[in-house]
C-alpha cells in the first residue's frame, strides 16, 4: 500500500504543468536523438548536463528519464529502416526488423516495436516501483563494507563481462579511476594529480569529462570515418498491425519483458544479453521458424520488449543503490551529484518527491512515446536526412558551449579537447568507454566506503569482511573471475580426447 501511496504522490509531482512539459521535451528529444545517427541518449544527456544545472532537480531528472526511454523508441526506428544499429542494444532488432522493412512490412515492424516497447516499458516501470523500495530496505541495513563489495562487483562486471576484451575494459577502468583521483582528497585535503596547476585542484568537472568522452570523442571518431555513400532509407508509412501480427506479437512482448527486466537490474546490466536471449527464445518457440532470417515479426517484438524492460531494470540499482550499470544511468547519477544530491539507498528517504515523481513520469513518458511514435514515425524518419556536416559540427558546437558554460573558463575547453582525443583513441583501439565513466563516478565513492569501513574496524582488515552480504558478494566476484579459467581448463582437458575420437 505504501508503494501505491508513494506512486500517487509521484503522479501528483509528475503531473504539474512544468514537469509534464519536461517529460514532453524529454521524450521528443529522446526520440530525436534515438533516430539521429551518431547521437544517442548518453551523449544527449551529457550535452544537456551543463544547461540543466540551473533547473530544478526533479524537472531535470524527469526530462532525462524521458530522453532515456525515448532513445529506445527512436533507436528501433533507425535500426529497422537503416539496418545499421547505432547502439548494441538494437543490433538484434535490426536483424529481423530490417528484413521486414525490405519485404514491405516496415509499418508492422515499427508498430510491433513501438507497442512492444510500451508494454515492456510499462510493466518494467511497475516492477521498478515494486522492487526498488525492497532493495532500498535491504540496502539501508548494510554497512560500508557490504556497500563497498557491491560497488566493486558493479565495477568489475561492467568492465569484465560486457565488451569483448577484458584487458581493454580494465585499461579504460584505470583511466576513469585516475581521472576521478584528480583534485583534493576529500578526507586529508592532500593534492592528488594536480601537478601544481591551480585549475586542477577542484578536480575535473564530471560534466566536462562526460561531454568530452561521449560527444567530442564520438563526433571526431565519426568525422574520421564518415560514410561517403548515401545510406538507403526505406520509405515508411503509418505504422499499423493486423490481427495476425497482434496474435504473433503479444507473447514475445511478455517473454521479452520477463527476460529484460532481471538482466537490466543485475550489476552487469545491459541490454545485449537479454535481447539476444529473447531472439533465440522466439526463434525456438515460433510456429514460423522458417521466417526467421527473412523478417519474422516475433524477432522484432521480443528483443524490442527485452530492450525496454532492461532499461527499466537498469534504473532499479541506479536509484535504489546508486549503482549505474550503463552509460545513460551513469550520467543521470552524475546529474544528481550536480544538484548536491547523493545517489544511494538514502535517496528514497531523502528525496521521495524526486524519486517517485521520476518513476511516475516514466509511466507518463512511456504513454507519450507511444502516442508520438505511432502516428509520427514517417516524420521522425525524415530526421535521417539531416546533412551530416551540420549534425556533427552541431555536436562539437554544443559540446564546447556546454563545457564552457559550466565555469566560463577556456581551460575547460582544453580539457575537453584532450579528453575528446582520448575518447577518439579509445574508439579507434577498441577500449570501451563505459568502464571509464563508471570508474569515474564510482571511484571516489568506493574510496570513501573503503575508508569508512576500515575506520569503523580501527584499521583491522577484517572490517572489510564483517557482514555476510559483503562476504557473499566477494564470493560471487571470485566465482565470476574463476569461471572462465575453469571453463578454459576444462575445454583444454577435453579437446585432446575429442581429437583422439575423430
Amino acid at each position, binding site marked *: 500500500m505504501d508503494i501505491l501511496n508513494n506512486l500517487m504522490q509521484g503522479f501528483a509531482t509528475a503531473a504539474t504543468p512544468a514537469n509534464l512539459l519536461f517529460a514532453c521535451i524529454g521524450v521528443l528529444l529522446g526520440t530525436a536523438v534515438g533516430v539521429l545517427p551518431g547521437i544517442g541518449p548518453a551523449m544527449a544527456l551529457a550535452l544537456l548536463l551543463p544547461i540543466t544545472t540551473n533547473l530544478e532537480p526533479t524537472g531535470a531528472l524527469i526530462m532525462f528519464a524521458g530522453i532515456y526511454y525515448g532513445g529506445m523508441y527512436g533507436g528501433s526506428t533507425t535500426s529497422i529502416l537503416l539496418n545499421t*544499429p547505432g547502439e548494441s542494444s538494437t543490433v538484434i532488432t535490426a536483424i529481423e526488423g530490417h528484413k521486414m522493412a525490405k519485404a514491405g512490412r516496415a509499418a508492422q515492424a515499427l508498430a510491433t516495436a513501438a507497442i512492444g516497447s510500451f508494454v515492456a516499458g510499462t510493466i518494467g516501470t511497475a516492477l521498478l516501483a515494486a522492487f526498488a523500495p525492497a532493495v532500498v530496505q535491504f540496502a539501508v541495513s548494510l554497512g560500508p563494507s557490504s556497500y563497498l563489495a557491491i560497488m566493486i562487483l558493479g565495477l568489475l562486471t561492467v568492465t569484465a563481462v560486457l565488451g569483448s576484451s577484458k584487458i581493454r575494459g580494465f585499461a579504460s577502468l584505470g583511466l576513469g579511476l585516475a581521472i576521478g583521483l584528480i583534485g583534493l582528497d576529500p*578526507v586529508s585535503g592532500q593534492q592528488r594529480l594536480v601537478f601544481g596547476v591551480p585549475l586542477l585542484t577542484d578536480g575535473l568537472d564530471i560534466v566536462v569529462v562526460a561531454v568530452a568522452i561521449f560527444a567530442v570523442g564520438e563526433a571526431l571518431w565519426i*568525422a574520421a570515418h564518415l560514410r561517403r555513400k548515401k545510406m538507403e532509407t526505406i520509405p515508411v508509412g503509418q505504422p499499423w498491425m493486423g490481427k495476425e501480427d497482434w496474435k504473433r506479437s503479444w507473447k514475445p512482448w511478455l517473454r521479452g519483458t520477463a527476460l529484460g527486466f532481471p538482466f537490466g537490474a543485475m550489476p552487469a546490466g545491459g541490454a545485449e544479453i537479454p535481447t539476444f536471449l529473447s531472439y533465440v527464445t522466439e526463434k525456438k518457440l515460433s510456429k514460423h521458424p522458417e521466417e526467421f532470417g527473412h523478417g519474422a515479426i516475433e524477432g522484432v517484438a521480443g528483443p524490442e520488449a527485452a530492450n525496454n524492460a532492461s532499461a527499466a531494470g537498469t534504473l532499479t540499482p541506479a536509484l535504489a543503490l546508486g549503482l549505474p550499470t550503463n552509460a545513460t544511468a551513469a550520467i543521470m547519477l552524475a546529474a544528481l551529484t550536480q544538484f548536491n544530491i547523493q545517489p544511494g539507498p538514502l535517496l528514497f528517504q531523502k528525496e521521495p518527491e524526486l524519486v517517485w515523481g521520476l518513476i511516475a513520469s516514466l509511466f507518463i513518458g512511456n504513454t507519450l512515446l507511444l502516442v508520438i511514435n505511432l502516428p509520427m514515425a514517417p516524420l521522425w524518419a525524415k530526421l535521417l536526412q539531416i546533412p551530416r556536416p551540420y549534425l556533427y559540427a552541431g555536436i562539437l558546437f554544443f559540446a564546447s558551449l556546454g563545457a564552457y558554460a559550466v565555469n566560463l573558463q577556456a581551460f575547460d575547453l582544453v580539457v575537453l579537447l584532450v579528453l575528446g582525443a582520448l575518447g577518439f583513441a579509445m574508439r579507434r583501439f577498441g577500449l570501451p568507454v563505459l568502464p571509464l565513466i563508471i570508474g569515474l563516478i564510482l571511484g571516489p565513492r568506493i574510496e570513501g566506503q573503503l575508508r569508512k569501513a576500515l575506520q569503523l574496524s580501527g584499521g583491522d582488515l577484517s572490517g572489510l569482511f564483517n557482514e555476510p552480504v559483503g562476504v557473499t558478494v566477494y564470493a560471487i566476484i571470485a566465482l565470476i573471475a574463476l569461471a572462465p579459467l575453469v571453463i578454459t581448463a576444462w575445454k583444454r582437458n577435453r579437446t585432446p580426447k575429442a581429437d583422439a575420437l575423430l
Partner: protein
Amino acid sequence: MSSPAADAGSPADRGSTGSGHDDGERTAVAAPGHRSRAELGIAALLGVAGVVVLWDASRITVPYSVSDVVGPKTMPVIVGSLLLVSAVLLAVNVLRGGSGQAEEGEDVDLSHPTDWKTVLPLVGFFVLNIVLIDPLGWVLSGTIMFWGSVWSLGSRHYLRDGLVSLGLALGTFYGFYLGLGIHLPAGILAGIL
C-alpha cells in the same frame, strides 16, 4: 554486420572468449603492421599514466591519523598499479596479434582509413575557438567554429552555412542569457549585444 548468425553469435561469446579476441571480419579491414604499432602506443600511454599516478602518490605525505587508516595514498597506488598492469597485458596482447575492435555506428564506415583531412581541420577550428572565445566573445568565436566545422566536414554552401552559424551562435548567446541566466562572454561586441 554481415549475417544474422554472426551478429547473434557475438553477445553469447562475450563471457567466455579471451581478452582481445577479434572476430575475423574486422581484422581484415585494417593494415595490421601500422595498426599494431599505433596500438602499442596506447599501451605506452597507459604505462605512462600508471607511472605518473604512482609517482604522484609517492610524494603524498600521509599524516598519521587514527580516524583515517587508509589515507590518501592507497587508492592512487591501486589505480596506478592497475594502469601499469593493463599496459603490460595490453602490450603482450598486441604483440601476440590481438587488436581492439574499432567502434561501429550508423554513419561510420570502417572500410576507409582514418580521414585526417577532416579531423585535423576540425581540431584546428576547435583550438581556434579556445583561443578566441574570451577576446572575441562567444557570438563571433562560436560562429567561426561552427562554420569552420561544417566546412571541414565537407559542406560548401558558404553563405547558407554562414547564416546558420551566426544564427546558432546568436541564438545560444541570448538563450543562455535570458533562459538560464548564464552570461557568455560578449567580447568585442560587448556594447552591441
